[in-house]
Structure formats: structure tokens, C-alpha cells
């Protein structure tokens, strides 16, 4: 994990540093009168401190263990899934809940779940209608209807 820990600790250190520098604009106050920026400043400092410790630990690690964490990753599947999620969020109001959900399930089940078109079609149809009935009809949640009105 050495290389991965070095990388992740640097990222967290940067996040912490950003918080430490950004928090004072909300006012840190004093110990007797802490203000709005006090707690974020403190947490930013804590993040930096722990990130530094991880970095030093990784630097001193001589075990030589190199774990290949990305070896098993199926990047096409991963990216496709994330893109489908983003597309769903972008199109929900425009297409409406039922159609949008149907498309999401159809494509994910077929391309990612390796199911036949027939099965995927059935899954998409059933899940979008049943979840609509559960949330909209039974639980009275207001799901977007979209340009088609349903």
C-alpha cells in the first residue's frame, strides 16, 4: 500500500490545507469566544496532521509490499455505471421518473449485468412501475413527471 498511501495522504493533506486557509474568512475568533470558522479550522488542522502521519509512515515502510489495487478493475464497466448515474440525475426532471428509471435499469441490466434484452426489458418495466407505485402512490413522494406527463 506504500505508493497508494503516499498518494492518498498528499490528497488529504491538500484538502486539509485548503480548509485551514479558507476557514479564517468566516472568523476563527479566540479560545474564549470561538466563532463560525473555529471548528472547520480545527478539523482542517486535524486532517493535515493525520495525513502527514500517514505520509511519514508510508515513507518509512520498507516492507516492499506492492498491492495492485487497480489490477482487477473493469474500467469500462465502472465508467459506464458512473455515466449512467450522472445521466439519470441530469435527465430525471426532463424525462420523468418512469421513463428515466426504465432506461437506467434496461441499460444497466443488459450491459453491466449481462442479462438478455428480454429480461432487461422486463426488469426495467417492472422496477420502474413498482417503485413509482411505492414512492408516488403509496408514500406520496413527489416524483418528477417530465415532458410526457408521467
Amino acid at each position, binding site marked *: 500500500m506504500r505508493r497508494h498511501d503516499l498518494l492518498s495522504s498528499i490528497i488529504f493533506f491538500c484538502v486539509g490545507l485548503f480548509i485551514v486557509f479558507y476557514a479564517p474568512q468566516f472568523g476563527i475568533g479566540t479560545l*474564549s469566544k*470561538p466563532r463560525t470558522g473555529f471548528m472547520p479550522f480545527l478539523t482542517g488542522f*486535524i486532517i493535515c496532521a493525520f495525513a502527514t502521519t500517514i505520509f511519514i509512515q508510508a515513507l518509512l515502510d520498507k516492507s516492499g509490499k506492492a498491492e495492485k489495487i487497480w489490477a482487477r478493475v473493469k474500467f469500462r464497466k465502472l465508467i459506464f455505471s458512473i455515466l449512467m448515474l450522472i445521466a439519470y*440525475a441530469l435527465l430525471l426532471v426532463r424525462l420523468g421518473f418512469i421513463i428515466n428509471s426504465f432506461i437506467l*435499469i434496461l441499460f444497466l441490466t443488459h450491459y453491466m449485468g449481462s442479462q438478455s434484452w428480454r429480461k432487461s426489458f422486463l426488469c426495467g418495466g417492472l422496477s420502474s412501475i413498482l*417503485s413509482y407505485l*411505492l414512492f408516488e402512490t403509496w408514500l406520496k413522494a413527489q416524483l418528477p413527471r417530465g415532458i410526457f406527463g408521467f
Partner: protein
Amino acid sequence: MNLLNQILMGFGVALEPLNLLFCFLGVVTGTLVGVLPGLGPTASISLLLPITFHLSPVTGVIMLAGIYYGAMYGGSTTSILVNIPGEAASVVTCIDGYQMARQGRAGPALGMCAFGSFIAGTFSIIVLMLIAPPLAEVALKFGPPEYFSLMVLGLTLLAYLSSGPMIKALLMAGVGLFLGTIGVDTLTGSTRFTFGTITLMDGVGLVPVVMGIFGIGEVLENLEVKITREVYTTKVKNLLPSIQDWAESKWALIRGTILGFFLGVLPGGGALIASFASYALEKKCSKTPEKFGTGMIAGVAGPEAANNSATGGAFVPLLTLGIPANAVMAVMMGALMIHGIQPGPTLIDQYPDLFWGVITSMYIGNAMLLILNLPLIGIWVQVLRVPYGILFPLIMLFCLIGAYTMKNNVSDMFIMIIFGIVGYLMRKYKYDAPPLVLALVLGPMMEESVRKSLLMSGGSPFIFFEHPISAIILLIAILMLVSSLIPGLKRKREKIEKIVSEGES
């Protein structure tokens, strides 16, 4: 007499038809979640959280509690029949349970799990009923310094017992605390870290964060592995354990129940640690420890009792101190807060119907599970055959709906997707998620207590050591941190860490 009246009032609430229905739905869903590998109780409770927005708080929490202890029951089924734990706390059940199944004794193993879980669950509920009200009275005397120290201890313990390196867990707690500060400052009313967006004015919601990290993150990781489930083909028969089985398990059940409850109460503890500790204890107490791993029924009874007892124990700090013991309880706390209920020492007095209603419903739920689990094992086995390729798109859809229906806001879906990716990366880089979630929930409370404490003391940070209770609690937390650095103890902790992470994977 007063206690009896309150229990009767609780049963009155729990036996209302709607509450009974949602208790049933909760335990069935929980069992289903427990049976299906690849979806833990935290993810499932978060997935079903949106349903509770439209219910009364009592009904909502009754259902969520049902999912939690239902998952503990269901997890054992897959451990025994498939050698795959449905959820992490059932990992230990695989060791002897699956061996029993191979020897044609799946029936008694499943039966003992169900009865053991019922006995332990009942015990933990009774103890919860007895100790929660006096504990809440003690907690009423706590001031901001004591609360702050308690929360520090909770986070330290969770980090100490986390499955990854402790320093990474502490870092995650820091990130969670920061996320908890985003939005409106409750003491001054001014906003911070909103970057001019309206969505972040209310803060980073617990629901999108938990759904992202536990729901989407888990699904994205599971895309890398082929989840196959070969159900053990032996016909499940003779579910009732024999007299000899009972004789071999009785002490394991008693020990597991008591140990599990106390480990459940500890912040950072919970069902997973309880089941591991119980198995180790049974092995130590046994006259034939070498036989563990070959199909000993005591190796099934003890851990199963422990993990169910721990679920009841975990409610103690939440309902009496307002401090969740683990990530599941943090989500439960979030659910209460969405309904405007602040868990804490005043909860029992302010919402007696909620407190006693939920506790008594747990008793009813346990009875339901006993009736459900044994005759329905055949159906649960069938459920195991649902391909993951169909399951994971549904999990994703539920996460998206859940994030949206919280405030009917598309931005929350984007927050959830971002945290889904973050959750996936956290798994890859071995950063534990529960401390982040717990810190996110505790963050605003912690900030309030630290600022109030400093105001009280005129700026002296030593106030946390001047109050005796606060000092003792902080000292325990410091000792825990220091002990993780002592080489001998560090090795021991790393050993436990390895077992737990192997169990979770």
C-alpha cells in the same frame, strides 16, 4: 409498577396495525438483506430511509430497527448454506455452520441460529428496558464538556476497532467532522463552505453521503468481482435442534448473549466485534478447542447470540446519550433527526411512545423472525439465486430515488454520486467509512459542545480535564490512542484488524 405501565404503553403502540405492518416489513426486508451478500445493513437502512420520511417517526424507526436485527438473523442463513456471510457479523458462523451443513446438519445449525438469536435478542431488549431510563437520568447531569469527551471516546473507539489502520480511521473521522460543519452555523446563523450554493446551506445531507458511500460505493466495488452463489444442495431438514445440541450450546448461548450486549453498548463496538469475540471465548472455554472449525454447534450458537444481543445493546447509547455506537446507529439517529427528534437523555420523557414503542416492537419483531425464519428458509435459499446483474441496478435506482426524495432536489443526487465515487476510492485505498459517517452525525453536536465548553471556561481547554467524568472519559480515549502505539498491543490489534478485514471481504 411504573415500568410495567410503560411497557404496556409500548406494546399498545407497537401493536397498532400500521406499526405492526412496518415492523413486519422491516424484519422481512432485513432478513432479505442479510441473505443477499453484497448489501450490508448500513447500506440497506440508508436505502430504505426515504420510505420513513413519509411515515410517523415511531413507525419509521420501528421499520429501520426491524431491518437491523432482521439482517443479523438473515446473515446466518447464507453463512451456513453457501459459506458466504450475508453481512459481516455472520462471518464467524461460516466456520462451523458450513461444516455442519456439509455433514448434513444444516437444519439444526439454522434452527440453533434462529433460537439463539431469539433468546439473545429478547435478553438484550429486556436489559435495554431496564438500564436505559436510569442511564438517561445520569446523562441529564452531563454538561457540554462531558458530551464532548463522550463523543471523542466514541470516535476513538470506532477508529480503534475499525477494520483498517487506525490512523486512516482517525483521518476519516476528521473529514466527517469537517463535512458536519458545512452549511449554517447553528450558534451564529452564518453560513460556511457553501460556495454560494443553496444546496449546501442545509449542509451535506447524511442520506446522500451514506447512500453514496455504502450503496453506490459497494456496488461499484462489486462490479470487479464475480458474485457466484452455489447453494449447498443438501436438503434442509430437522430444523429443531436435539437435546444434545441444546446441552452443547447452552453455555455458549448464555456467554454470547451477555458478551454481545456489552460489546454492543460500547461506542465503536457492535455485532461484528461481538461475534468474533464470542467465537474466541467459546474456543477458550471449550474442553475440545481443536474441534472448532469442524462443525461444533457451540461455534454457531455463541456468535449468533452475540451478534443479535449486540444490536439491542447498540440502542443504549443512542437512546440515552444521543450518541450512536456505530454507523448503523448513526443512520438511525439521522432518521430521527429528519423528523425533528433529537435523541438524548430527554428522549424517554419527551417521546415515551417512541422509546417504549420501538423497544417493544423489537420484541414482537424477534418473535416474527423466529416464526418467519424457520419455515421460510426454502424461500430465502431461492432468493440467493437472484443474479447480481439484476440486483445491482435496482440498488442504484433506490439510491438515486432516496437521494432525490429527501428534499426533491436533483443536486442531492449529484452529492450522492460524488460520495459514491469517494466511497469506492476509500475502499480501494483502505480508508474505513464508518468513522466518517459517525463523525458527520456527531460533528454539529461536537462543535456545539466544544464551543459552549470554551465559553464556559473563558477559553481554557483544560475544562475537559477539570470535570471529573469528562476527564475519565478523555483519559480512556487517550489510553486507547497510546495503546495503539505500544508494539505488543499494536501487533495484537493488527491481528484482529486482519481477521476483521478478511471477514468483511
